[in-house]
């Protein structure tokens, strides 16, 4: 096929990607949107296979079969609760693919003997740098989400200095690649340094900040693809890479806003109690009331409007199905049930929504924080399951608190609050939660899933 038709085909593929993303603006059109994107990808691949430079297909076919098989198994087998891990892993694979493609292109250009264009070498260095940071950063994020690596923030002295030094070395090596593209070793040195940098950048970030990290790495994987597009002078890579880069950046920004923190603070800062503020004993002493599942069931029986506020704890105890059963039981009794989802609840953007969708919760009853807060005082019972910092009223009341100014779901304004929690241990921010000691709060101590099942039993018996 001529260059002309190849480029027209790539243009159509890019248009399909854009329409595909546009489809994701509503659940009704989203499945079709995803299919459009897949069609675009298939078109781009088929066109590429007609390229004159290809002398043999056996290596390509072997690679496609292997990759497709692993990808399909992962996609079909993965538990919905493990979705953050999978997305982190896929981000990383996108990054490493860019590293490998740019590396191969660099070697091929040295074979030709001709001098490379500066833009090509700059883009090669960028692919190697961003791709390697994405790959290793994603692997660390995967390890943290999976629990292979400690989820806690790992800090050591001189961390910033080491990172800064590594970043400088990486930039120097990038300059080296640009000035002497024939020296392929410089490229692999750059990739190695960028790999170490990727590990060190993500290691210090704690579990609850993972939504930001996963979104940011998503953006990087797009930028790496765009950089590879500049290496190959291929517009469809540039367009697609920028779309994904923009998408990741928007999500990163939304996540940061939802925590009232800057990106720099999430990546390099430490979320630590400022020393001031009340201790757990002062906040809780004598004021925390605990309830039994039967008492909570009675509360529900008398309620007209119920809001369920899920957090990461719901994912950990796999409680989404019992929660949905409880909600439909209440709905059957004429009680209006809604879900209030905080943007950073869980370990990735939209994590809670996917789990609830898995449990057949209707899309319409999933409410964003900003939608439900204005009328939360009309809610008779707010049931908190596995959420802590995102419902801590200290974010509003105590300007010295580490979460000061973070937008929260104002459940403390609901008529009654029931909190399912194992103990009074603090959440990720490490601070006590005065919500647990409010007059209208009841603690239901225990495992999330078991407690919800107990409430259901009590409701049925009553």
């Amino acid at each position, binding site marked *: 096929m001529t260059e002309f038709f190849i480029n027209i085909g790539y243009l159509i593929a890019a248009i399909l990607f854009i329409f595909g*993303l*546009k489809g*994701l*603006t509503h*659940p*009704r059109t*989203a*499945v079709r949107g*995803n299919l459009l994107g897949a069609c675009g*990808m298939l078109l781009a691949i088929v066109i*590429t296979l007609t*390229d004159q430079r290809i*002398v043999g*297909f056996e290596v*390509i076919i072997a*690679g496609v079969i292997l990759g497709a098989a*692993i*990808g399909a198994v*992962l*996609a079909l087998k993965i538990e919905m609760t493990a979705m953050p891990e*999978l*997305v982190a892993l896929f*981000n990383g*694979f*996108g990054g*490493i693919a860019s590293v*490998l*493609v740019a590396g*191969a292109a660099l*070697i091929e250009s040295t074979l030709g003997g001709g001098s490379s264009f500066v*833009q090509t070498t700059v883009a090669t260095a960028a692919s190697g740098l961003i791709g390697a940071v994405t790959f290793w950063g994603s692997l660390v994020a995967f390890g943290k989400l999976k629990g292979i690596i400690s989820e806690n923030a790992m800090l050591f002295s001189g961390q910033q200095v080491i990172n800064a030094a590594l970043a400088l070395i990486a930039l120097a090596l990038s300059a080296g690649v640009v000035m002497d593209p024939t020296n392929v070793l410089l490229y692999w040195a750059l990739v190695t340094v960028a790999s170490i940098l990727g590990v060190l950048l993500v290691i210090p970030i704690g579990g609850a900040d993972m939504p930001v990290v*996963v979104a940011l790495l998503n953006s990087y*994987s*797009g930028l790496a693809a765009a950089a*590879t597009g*500049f290496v*190959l002078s*291929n*517009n469809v*890579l*540039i*367009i*697609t*890479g*920028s779309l*994904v880069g*923009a*998408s*990741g950046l*928007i999500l990163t920004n*939304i996540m940061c806003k939802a925590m009232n923190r800057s990106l720099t603070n999430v990546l390099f800062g430490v979320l630590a109690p400022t020393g001031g503020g009340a201790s757990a004993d002062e906040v809780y002493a004598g004021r925390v009331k605990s309830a039994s599942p039967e008492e909570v069931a009675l509360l529900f029986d008398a309620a007209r409007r119920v809001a369920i506020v899920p957090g990461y704890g719901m994912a950990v105890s796999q409680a989404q199905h019992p929660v949905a059963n409880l909600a439909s039981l209440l709905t059957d009794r004429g009680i209006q049930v809604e879900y209030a*989802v905080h*943007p950073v609840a869980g370990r990735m*953007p*939209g994590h809670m929504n*996917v789990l609830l*969708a898995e449990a*057949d*919760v*209707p899309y319409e009853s999933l409410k964003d924080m900003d939608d439900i807060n204005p009328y939360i005082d009309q809610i008779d019972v707010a049931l908190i399951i596995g959420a802590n910092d995102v419902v801590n009223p200290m974010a509003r009341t105590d300007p010295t608190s580490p979460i000061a100014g973070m937008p929260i779901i104002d459940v403390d304004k609901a008529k009654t609050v029931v909190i399912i929690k194992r103990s009074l241990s603090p959440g990720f921010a490490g601070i006590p939660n005065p919500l647990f000691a409010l007059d209208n709060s009841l603690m239901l101590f225990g495992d999330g899933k078991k407690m919800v099942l107990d409430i259901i039993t009590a409701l049925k018996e009553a």
Partner: protein
Amino acid sequence: MELLISGITIFVLAIFVGFEIITKIPPTLHTPLMSGSNAISGITLVGAILSAGAQQTVLTTTLGFLAVVFATLNVVGGFMVTNRMLEMFKKKS
């Protein structure tokens, strides 16, 4: 130079298109958005296919092969898992 300028033009314009569309996506669909955009970032497969197919040296072919594996994994896994999630949202709407 001309190639670079047109490349940068496309890059910048595509970022604007991305911002316009993606800001309209509701928070509920943010996880499928991530996995779906992830799948399309596997477009690097196009470059990987060229390296694996041109077979200039053993090294470039090997690099190309590995890139094909990772990029295909990204594409196939990404689209399939996104579809699985979106079907769950769809059946109740």
